[in-house]
């Protein structure tokens, strides 16, 4: 059994650009905007960075290949920059690179930065792209809502949930996130919505209506990480450390074999189990203070509550409707507004989630600050589709927790 990452790495500083339709900004300007906040927060000089990881998913409408765009935008001191792409989980993947570099001792201070400029496509939703030569001949390159919508039919069928009940629970997910996003100046969408608006919105991919889908936006977020010792030596008092960092990748079992029923995320269950073990969490429903999960679609967030073992299987829809995940509920989910309100600039999202958890742990979340002081905060960052994906779970917490 690996010894894990718990408390070996601290977050020294974080930054997050304003997410939205940033018509007037290029990707490099968004990177600088997020980085300025993070390096100010860290209280270090750029020359102290030993290595960097850059997460970006869509080359074609973005910065192009390699780590060079990050090195150039930030004028990094010729350190190694690794570009990572792991579908929509790319942001957490960049974080993992930086955290592992520090944990190994290869770097004292490392940077993880994610950026995506999605609003240069000319249309809503994610860009259409190839999935590889073989897949393109035999696979269905459906839209993201189309791929995730399929969870609903399988979930209903497996758990005997009525169409209307599930649709209402999904709508509650979105209403809750919009209420949270309305209090976040960095969110793309800062407007509350009501149930009727969500339930009666145009259908995008049955049963997902417009408000069941997260926004599409431009954005950037970043983290500067180091060891807890260096963080203290730099004068940091309240230290947030990484408690667990797990990524699970589909190996084709869901897609090609017959065992998976389509109603859940096989990988999330594996990543969550390993993450709780790494962090020493035995009762997640009691121990996790708050969560930022990959709510690309309302149904994704709903079933993820079960895959993270917060809700019992088949009962997340009831927890949702009872307000368990609301900002004032037992375990708030998307207290910053989530992908729903931030939109999903792919490479940045995983880091944006950790950014909110970091703020909440340090009591710096302003009007959104959770009244009960949080101790352990979980982020879940998912890439791909339910049938074939990359699922990342990161738990950060107060160093002495």
């Amino acid at each position, binding site marked *: 059994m690996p010894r894990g990452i718990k408390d070996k790495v601290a977050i020294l500083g974080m930054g997050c650009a304003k997410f939205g339709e940033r018509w007037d900004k290029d990707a490099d300007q968004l990177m600088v905007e997020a980085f300025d906040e993070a390096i100010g927060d860290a209280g270090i000089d750029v020359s102290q960075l030993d290595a960097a990881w850059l997460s970006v998913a869509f080359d074609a409408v973005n910065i192009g290949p390699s780590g060079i765009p990050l090195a150039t935008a930030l004028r990094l001191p010729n350190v190694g920059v690794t570009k990572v792409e792991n579908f929509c989980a790319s942001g957490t993947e960049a974080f993992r690179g930086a955290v592992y570099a520090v944990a190994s001792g290869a770097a004292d201070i490392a940077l993880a930065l994610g950026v995506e400029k999605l609003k240069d496509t000319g*249309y809503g939703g994610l860009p259409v792209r190839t999935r590889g030569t073989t897949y393109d001949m035999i696979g269905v390159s*459906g839209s993201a809502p189309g791929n995730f919508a399929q969870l609903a039919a*399988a979930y209903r069928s497996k758990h005997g949930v009525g169409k209307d009940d599930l649709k209402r629970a999904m709508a509650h997910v979105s209403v809750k996130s919009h209420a949270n996003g309305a209090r976040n100046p960095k969110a793309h969408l800062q407007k509350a919505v009501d149930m009727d608006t969500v339930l009666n919105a*145009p259908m995008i991919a049955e049963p997902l209506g417009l408000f069941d889908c997260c926004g599409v936006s431009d954005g950037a977020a970043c983290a500067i990480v180091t060891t807890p010792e260096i963080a203290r030596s730099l004068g940091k008092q309240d230290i947030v450390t990484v408690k667990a960092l797990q990524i699970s990748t589909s190996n084709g079992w869901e*897609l090609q074999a017959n065992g998976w029923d389509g109603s859940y995320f096989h990988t999330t269950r594996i990543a969550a189990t390993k993450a709780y073990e790494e962090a020493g969490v035995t009762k997640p429903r009691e121990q996790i203070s708050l969560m930022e999960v990959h709510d690309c679609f309302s149904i994704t967030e709903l079933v993820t509550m079960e895959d993270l073992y917060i809700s019992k299987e088949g009962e997340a829809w009831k927890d949702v409707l009872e307000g368990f995940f609301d900002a004032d509920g037992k375990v708030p989910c998307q207290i910053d507004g989530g992908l729903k309100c931030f939109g999903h600039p792919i490479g940045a999202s995983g880091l944006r989630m950790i950014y909110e958890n970091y703020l909440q742990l340090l009591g710096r979340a302003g009007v959104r600050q959770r009244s009960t002081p949080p101790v352990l905060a979980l982020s879940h960052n998912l890439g791909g589709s339910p049938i074939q994906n990359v699922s990342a779970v990161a738990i950060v917490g107060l160093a002495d927790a």
Partner: protein
Amino acid sequence: MTSENGILAYGAYIPQRRLQRSAIYAANAWFAPGLRGLSAGEKAVASWDEDSITMAVEAARDCLTGLDRAAVSGVTLASTTLPFADRLNAGVVKEALNLADAVGASDQTGSLRAGTSALAQALAGQSGRLCLGADLRKARAASEAELQQGDAAGAILVGQGEVIAKFLGSYSATVDFVDHFRATGEPFDYTWESRWIRDEGYANLLGGAMAAGLAKLGVSGEAIDRALIPIPVRGVPESLARRCKIRPEAVADTLAACVGDSGTAHPLVMLAAALEAASPGEKILLVGFGQGADLLLFETTEALKRLPKRLGVAGHLARARKDANYMRFLFHRGILDMERGMRAEADEKQPGTALYRNRKAVLGLVGGRSKTTGTVQFPKTEISVSPNARAQGDQEDYPLAEKRARITTYTADSLSYSPDPPVYYGAIDFEGGGRLVAEFADCGPEDVEVGREMRMVFRVKAVDELRDFTKYFWKAVPVTSGEA
């Protein structure tokens, strides 16, 4: 009796949608009020993802129901609407049918008579040959042809052995009678006056050929039990039959009211319909017309009763769905240039190398089965997907096209570009194992639910419009009641 030459099996394919002629007329009456006389009934229209190749594949599969495909030693695809001018269209059909490489294949074209000519040549060839006729007909908006024509495919397997209909002989005549023509690469026919075609073409040329043919075959018109005269013009088959002393009740329905004239395919579709209705011992006269005429004479046998049940013409007619959406029809035929949005701009370039390597999987829907664990999967991979045993390099070919499947997940996607939105797709699980995320065709909201039974069809996956290359793959369609 054991080595007769003749027909071994028949099959048909008729697309599901039946465009109402009244809808075509209603849209065009302001411009061409004279079309009113043709505005009754409906015509079969192929969907955007069908062409002469895919329809031929479906007719062929219907024809081969319950038969050993090793009986097929050659394939002929007759059509005047072949997707490729230089790529063996019948070769694509061969791959889709997962036939052995050691079969012959050829395309036959150039005239609406190509279907009957292919059949006559195959019967003369004394070998097991699958004769296919398919046409996806394209006519200008507000033309008579638009109302008269329909899309379909027919399939006749000929050979020796226990034939369901003995081949009694054929007669052909060739005359350069240009009732209509279409230059290479042009989209539409140019057609001469219908009165001249009726008098000179049907009455004199075809009528004369029928009389000469019957004489050559040594059979009197009275002896014919079913006369298949694929001229879907009111009164013409009846009048031709009268001249040849064929009994009026022997004249077969031309399917003009419910299918329309499917061109090259039509004689074969009518032959399939006749065989599925016939009793043993009936004489069937099949006629083809186009720059001359073909006559073929058959006599059904007792073996007809033993042919495994198939969808056939009747089964396809039963699964018809009425359609009044003329705009969609025009769009699917490429006649109406609609705003498709940026999502339609994706580059569909197909690497020829990859298609060749994977042709069995892509065109034949052949997966793999681990000899060690029995795990079925699509496509084959070096290491089996089975989580229970790490079996490597042990998969044998496992064809999935004829397996039924059930829906595990689904959606109706309104965001992805599709010429026929919303596009339905989802994961399906095959009987006996194997899973595929497939597009669903011929599908509406009432057809999808977890557990719903589906079957596979060969369709156009996408078209590379930059390089004019059609990409084919398999889709799932709901099994309708009546399809056992």
